[in-house]
């Protein structure tokens, strides 16, 4: 059973990582969903197996460890909220750009393609001309 859980987590992590490396936002979000599921499965497998931990149901020695389950539940709720926000943003991004691709950082591109340097040179020439006029 533990091996099964570990294998499931590994599969989820693998598929999630693959989807995360894509360029489409929808795939990235699904990938994130799979990744977080993988983490939750791992969290569940961290606890001891046993009977439901209800007092009076069975002896305390046979109880399953309830703490990882509570932790996983909290993690699931948090991920759910964040994923919803992410989906809303992806929709907004689709409305704004008509595309599902992850957009490039424009200011970064400008620095890396020397446009900023070019701008500075042009600005400087303008300044010199301006001073000559005065």
């Amino acid at each position: 059973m533990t091996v099964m859980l570990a294998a499931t987590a590994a599969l989820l992590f693998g598929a999630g990582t693959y989807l995360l490396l894509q360029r489409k936002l929808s795939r990235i979000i699904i990938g994130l969903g799979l990744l977080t599921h993988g983490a939750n499965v791992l969290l569940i497998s961290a606890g001891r197996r046993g009977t439901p931990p209800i007092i009076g149901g069975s002896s305390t020695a046979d109880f399953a460890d309830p703490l990882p389950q509570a932790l996983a539940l909290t993690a699931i709720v948090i991920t759910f909220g964040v994923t919803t926000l992410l989906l809303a943003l992806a929709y907004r991004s689709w409305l704004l750009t008509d595309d599902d691709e992850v957009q490039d950082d424009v200011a970064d591109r400008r620095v890396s393609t020397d446009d900023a340097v070019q701008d500075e040179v042009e600005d400087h020439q303008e300044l010199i001309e301006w001073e000559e006029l005065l």
Partner: protein
Amino acid sequence: MGGAAVTWLLPLPIVLPLLGASLSVLAGRAKGLQRTVGLVTLLASTVVSVVLLVEVDRGGTMLAVAGGHPSPMGIALVADRFAAALLVVAEVALLAVLVYAIGEPGAERNHVGFQSAYMILSAGVAGSLLTGDLFSLFVSFEMMLTASYVLLTLGGRREQVRAGMTYIIISLIASTLFVLSLALLYSATGTVNMADLADHMAVLPSGTRTAFAVLLIVVFGIKAAIFPLFFWLPDSYPTAPSPITAVFAGLLTKIGVYAMVRTQVLLFPPESRPAGLLLVLAGLTMVVGVLGAIAQDDIRRILSFTIVSQIGYMIMGLGLFTAAAIAALIFSMVHHIVVKTSLFLVAGLVEHEGGDNRLSRLGDLIRRAPVLAVMFLLAALSLAGVPPFSGFVSKLALLQAGIAEKQFVIVAVSLVVSLLTLFAMARIWTSAFWSRAEIPAPERLVSATGRRKSRSPLGMLIPTGALVAVSLTIAVAAGPIYAFCQRAAGDLLDRGAYTEQVLEP
């Protein structure tokens, strides 16, 4: 175990803002009411955090366990000197930025959700500082981050949505890795209480311990923006409105550093701390950050890259793992939160005055806004570490700690990076304030008499000035503050005392 009388104050910095956030939602579109609630809440939290600091410094580490359960079972809130000091600085920065945001004419502060998201952010920050439990640290981080997602994308402009997506996805991956490390830690030790973990860590094989240490460095390294996990920061921070960027820049990465310091120092015994790895990362973070800053044209992007480079200094303090280095690290965190927040607030004012963020479009601000120029100069010189400002004290302490440990390479690197930081700051100063504008200002900024008029509202100037004054106070009172940092570092490195105080109060 001292200060038992005021233990009930411990949850207040988390509970008050959460209450404030709900009131803020209830207040709906009543702007005045929302702002009053926000200001009162943060003011109260600031007062509480100051009381906590005084009590903790007087009576030692404070502990409050939720629901009155015995210690490793209940969720523990712990305030030691390190946490209490950072809490005070964080609350002061949060309060100043809130005043600034209210004083700023613009759309964002008028958004219905702004105040409540801001309150939740402050609850998350306080929670991350005060928690004594690794899983509540995760929950507090999420509270803080989710609020930051909302604040970053408030307004929904194209640029914000693009940068916000990257930021959220990166943070969510970091959180997933955090849950993963929690799962592994729990299966190895059977606990998530930090003091209990520190005790259980000793029985693990040393390879497993080192693996956990590195895993936690990756998790918090993403949040703290250390090399090579920093790339999201200069991309996303500058797109937010200036007060929001200021609070992110001042607080969020520092909370990442705090979590890293807390986990590395407390959980792991000295022999399994990856000190060498941390020092290499620190050096690379400093260098890459400052070089990035020099390449940029936009003021906010320059400042964002210098955050990365300053984080390198803190990681250097952590990597040395001596009492002197940790004291220097705490001092530099306190200094950095104040200075960085005020620099970003000044950058927001510069945008107001000059109508642009790009150095190539700005100029001559010293004549139009001399007060602004002085505030920028004070904060920038402090950041670069010029004497007699607070940055100098923190860097001097760090360098002395480095020399004492004979880590000359990192000391040399940090000196060069200091010089380059000064260069990056001087670039902003000369092009935005000192020299003439290279491109004439747009018509709308020029008044009828031909002179450009100052447009900085007092509501923005006063909080910025107050923060700069705080940073000067840190420099003036450097002696007592540094002595306090040494006491805090002593507490941090004494792992046995911490676990004893938390587990057997």
